[in-house]
């Protein structure tokens, strides 16, 4: 009887792993396809798409597409720009949105429910609907640079950062997480004479690791994939991010191998960032049910 039970357990385990491996393969296949295609000349790449060879490093393999991608576009510059814009936005967004959420959850003040509702309502407003008014505002804002005071934020890093520091989704994530923290902790700190900034810095934020990771990853992806806004506000190549840079490869005859090489290179920062925060991200999803 025990042997049958052990056999069943082993079978169930085998089936479970088989299903998991299958799902993993489905998710990994596009990445493998991208990487393998980036190593093949265009003609072979197009021929291989109809067979399993598309996922294998076979045929005429080389790094020629990577070299050609660097010749066609300033790839390093685009990646640098995206990492700068994304990195600064993520850090500032976590700071500002967590402070806002802290004030909404822990500090009693008149109108906070209403204001929170308004902020959450912005979640249903697509960016495209506010893009043009935002462009008009950005083009008229004063700016101080090496040349002194000028008008307009266009062609800069800050025009790609500032509009995205505060957003409803990140505030919402922090509010939901903070609400689940034991209120006794905050009350005890207040009784001990801790100020609100001290509570924020010493008690709440050290406990907010999972939500910080979740918010950071979601913000990172949204910022790294920015296309419409930089297209509208950046005309100088020196400030262009990776997604606008992708269009350099779509000429009349698309160089698919170079496209795959470029995509492989710009995917590296995303994967590195996700892997770095993966554990906390999964913990956050498991504890809050929030999905990315």
């Amino acid at each position: 009887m025990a042997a049958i039970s052990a056999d069943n357990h082993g079978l169930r385990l085998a089936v479970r792993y088989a299903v998991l491996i299958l799902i993993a393969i489905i998710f990994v296949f596009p990445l493998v396809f991208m990487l393998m295609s980036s190593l093949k000349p265009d003609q072979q790449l197009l021929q291989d798409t109809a067979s399993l060879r598309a996922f294998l490093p076979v045929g005429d393999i080389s790094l020629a597409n990577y070299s050609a991608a660097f010749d066609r576009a300033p790839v390093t510059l685009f990646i640098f720009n995206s990492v700068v814009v994304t990195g600064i936005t993520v850090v500032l967004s976590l700071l500002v949105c967590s402070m806002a959420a802290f004030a909404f959850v822990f500090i009693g003040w008149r109108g906070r429910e209403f204001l929170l509702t308004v902020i959450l309502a912005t979640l249903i407003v697509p960016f495209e609907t506010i893009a043009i008014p935002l462009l008009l505002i950005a083009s008229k804002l004063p700016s101080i640079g090496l040349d002194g005071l000028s008008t307009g934020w266009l062609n800069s890093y800050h025009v790609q950062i500032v509009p995205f520091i505060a957003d409803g989704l990140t505030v919402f994530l922090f509010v939901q997480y903070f609400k689940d923290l034991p209120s006794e902790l905050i009350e005890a700190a207040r009784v001990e004479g801790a100020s609100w900034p001290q509570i924020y810095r010493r008690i709440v934020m050290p406990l907010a690791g999972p939500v910080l990771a979740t918010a950071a990853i979601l913000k990172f992806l949204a910022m790294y994939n920015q296309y419409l806004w930089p297209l509208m506000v950046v005309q100088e190549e020196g400030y262009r991010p990776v997604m606008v840079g992708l269009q350099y490869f779509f000429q009349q005859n698309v160089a698919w191998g170079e496209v795959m090489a470029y995509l492989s290179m710009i995917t590296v920062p995303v994967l590195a960032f996700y892997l770095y925060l993966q554990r906390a991200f999964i913990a956050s999803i498991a504890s809050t049910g929030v999905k990315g």
Partner: protein
Amino acid sequence: MTQMKWLAGAALAAAAWSGAAQAQTTLTMWYHGAGNEVEAKIVDQIIADFNASQTDWKVEMQSFPQAAYNDSVVAGALAGNLPDILDVDGPVMPNWAWSGYMQPLQIDEAAIANFLPGPKGYWNGQLYSIGLWDAAVALVTRQSYLDELGLRTPTLDQPWTKDEFMAALEAAKASGKFEYAFDPGMAWTGEWYPYAFSPFLQSFGGDIVDRTTYKTAEGVLNGDAAIAFGEWWQGLFANGYAQAAQDPADRDSGFAAGKYAFSWNGNWAAMNTLSQFPDTVFLPAPDFGNGPKIGAASWQFGVSASSQHPEGASAFIQFALQDKYLAAFSNGIGLIPPTATAAAMTDNYKEGGPMAVFYDLTKAQALVRPVTPGYVVQAKVFEKALADIANGADVAATLDAAVDEINADIEKNGGYGH
């Protein structure tokens, strides 16, 4: 005293240098060719030559990827941030002129008297843009295919009639040698549809919009000729001569792989095809009853309405119209030079050159797309209608719906200034 003279000399030299530097006013320029190394090199050369040729103006260029260019210009116009010089796709120019993004060119029109008609961008009787090249489409096949199928080789003077063209497709299909007899290029969406396919409609006797008034599409996009065109178009796919849904890979390499007997393709792809098959021939468009037609007009240069230095911007554009630059573009990327003298300087378009036929085709058959600000909307409506018909939609109902949509847009925009 010697020291004083030295100092005075240095001061004079500094003043002269600073004066010369200040004398050159900067002109900004936007160009759609980012990512195209050969094209960028030629444009950079023109700019360098122009900047060195005079002391009044200095052009500085920002390149944009083509797919993002039009949106960037519209955003730049909204933000009041347009450059002095911009380039514009020929059929889009009337829209940008009407929208107040561009101003008429201040160039001597005698300098473009010998240009092909396609690269000249006229709107409301004024020249707004001028192209350094043109593009043309031809029916691409191999002489060996024509011989095997027993087909007459059509010429500019005697293009195939509709019946001859359909007989050629039937012969190719019946041979069993090809997956499809004809590759119209269904994988290329967007501007390809009106550029490549509206000439078929025009050859049938219809059009996208009534060019006598530009205020309606009624009767031209849904009249008898247009319905005959729509039924013919649908028949290409229903009868198995062409595929309505095409893999982009097949569009790129299908003809070379022998999947298609005939391919409707542009001169930009011709060099590659010729290198694969030396017996490639570029045939004129068939005559469907109203004369053979192909599209015309490619990217052109113009001056933005907000430019404070239109005379400088125009001076640069006029400088770029020299035959040596027109020939350089043609040699570099296979485009059609807009003048016969420039064509004679090229490898491919000189008399007897392997692609000279495209120059003749453009001269004989080219018809610009409707010259109206509403074209940008009409092109999208036309594209959707043709895709729907190719996929089996009712021809008359689809064209009627397209006419309604185009007319509603014209009305909404107050007739677009016509």
